């Protein structure tokens, strides 16, 4: 598979897919134009995303110890999971 296609598929699965479902949930539940649970879940997951991503470039590799990191793709899915659990 060409790398562009592969990268697009990865991006779709990691970010675009959960984002689309979140937007769909927001659209479907827009009572008075404000599904008030979607934004808090997205903000919560977004802050976690930033916190885990921010220090990536801080350290030289020689000091790198055992890897403790959460893959970036987790957070959009956490936001989606929260939205879906809350909707139920």
């Amino acid at each position, binding site marked *: 598979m060409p790398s562009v296609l592969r990268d697009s598929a990865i991006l779709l699965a990691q970010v675009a897919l959960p984002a689309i479902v979140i937007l769909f949930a927001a659209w479907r539940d827009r009572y008075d134009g404000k599904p008030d*649970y979607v934004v*808090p879940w997205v*903000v919560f997951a977004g*802050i976690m995303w930033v916190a885990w991503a921010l220090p990536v470039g801080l350290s030289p590799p020689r000091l790198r110890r055992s890897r*403790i990191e959460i893959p970036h793709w987790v957070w959009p899915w956490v936001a989606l999971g929260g939205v879906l659990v809350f909707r139920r």
Partner: protein
Amino acid sequence: MMRVPVTAALLAGAVALAVHAAAWGAAAGVVAKSVHPPPLQSALALGGSALLLRVVNVASHRRRMLATGAILVAFGIAMVAVPLDLQFAGNGFMGDGVDYALSRDKFERNIPVAGGNPEIQFKSHLGDLFLAGVDRMFGRTEDSPGIAYRTLSRAGGFLFLGELLLVIVVLRGSRRACRYVGLALAIPLVIGFFGYYEVGYMSASAAAFPLLLHSMRRRTQGHALEIGGGLQGLHAAFHGFGLLGIAGGVLAALRDRDRQIWTACRYGAFALAAYLVWLLVYIVVFGWSVMSDPYSGHIAFRHLTTSAYFDRRLVHQLLSWRAVTEVGMASLAIGVPLLVFALVRAKSRLERHASLLYALPGLLFLVVWWPSAGVGHDMDLLLGAFAGMSAAIWLASRTPRIAFQAWIVLAVVHVMFWAVVADRTMERIWIAQ
């Protein structure tokens, strides 16, 4: 000499944890139905914690110290800049504190010295003194009780951050100390420092357990034991639930390798001194009377097999679905699962035993105590009663990997905390006269 009682206490701790774990099953169904997005304060606590854990893991000593200092300062600013809403998901979760803050009359009835009466109630004498002092400083107006509660919350937050810095200094900036600080930023207790209108969360110390354990491990000429005991006593002076922390510290000290009685007595003596020395000030300097708070009689304990009425509310027997569910909800929300996780992953027998002994009084209390306002409304007291949280995060800070896994457990605990706050199915029902 202490082998048999210590073994008995460890067994009691294991049984208490088993009761908690069994209660989680009953509570899970209720909690799952009321999952809500955690508010910004939880996200900031978890985010700050994650940031620190990652930096500590990869940076040199100098960068580690700089990053820890910067994150603690940023956390202090966040505590002041992002106060909690008074309600969450339509539920007022701050107990009676909001009533006291909004009604001057109720505030003065709760804290007589704030109304000019020369008497102070023993239950949370230092907390009341602080509230009355700030209230007086701001002119005893209709708004000043609210300012006093918010100031107490921030003061508690800065005391918490100061204790974390103390741990880093005493442990010479070790990676483990920094991981401990990183995890401490994510414990649910920190929610109290974002403008919580109550006093109960002030009873827990962040530094007492690491300092006590440090003094037990190293026979050097330090004062970690005395400082740890003194800090726990100070927190008990803010609210009496800190006595559970003092009892836990004395029990943990009995696990010392030698001089167990000496260590336990010295820790207890310093803690009690810091708890009670204030009474001299009230009586001798200010000329006040120290009174028993009528509300301190409003502590109810669950009976094993019989229900009872207490202050127009029904206290279900311990062996009932409702009581077990309440115990499980409280346990999940304040982070007891992290203690189980940390005990399982611990390597050092001394640390594991000391942690379980330290947590034991709180674990037992959480089973038998009946939170009179309901689990979701007495969160400050529940958080304050579980002193074992600091022991849990100390155990979990052993390696980067375990600290990372503990962070995930803490993230789930935050979600459960707010789910319990949002739940309405377990509200107390008041019976008409």
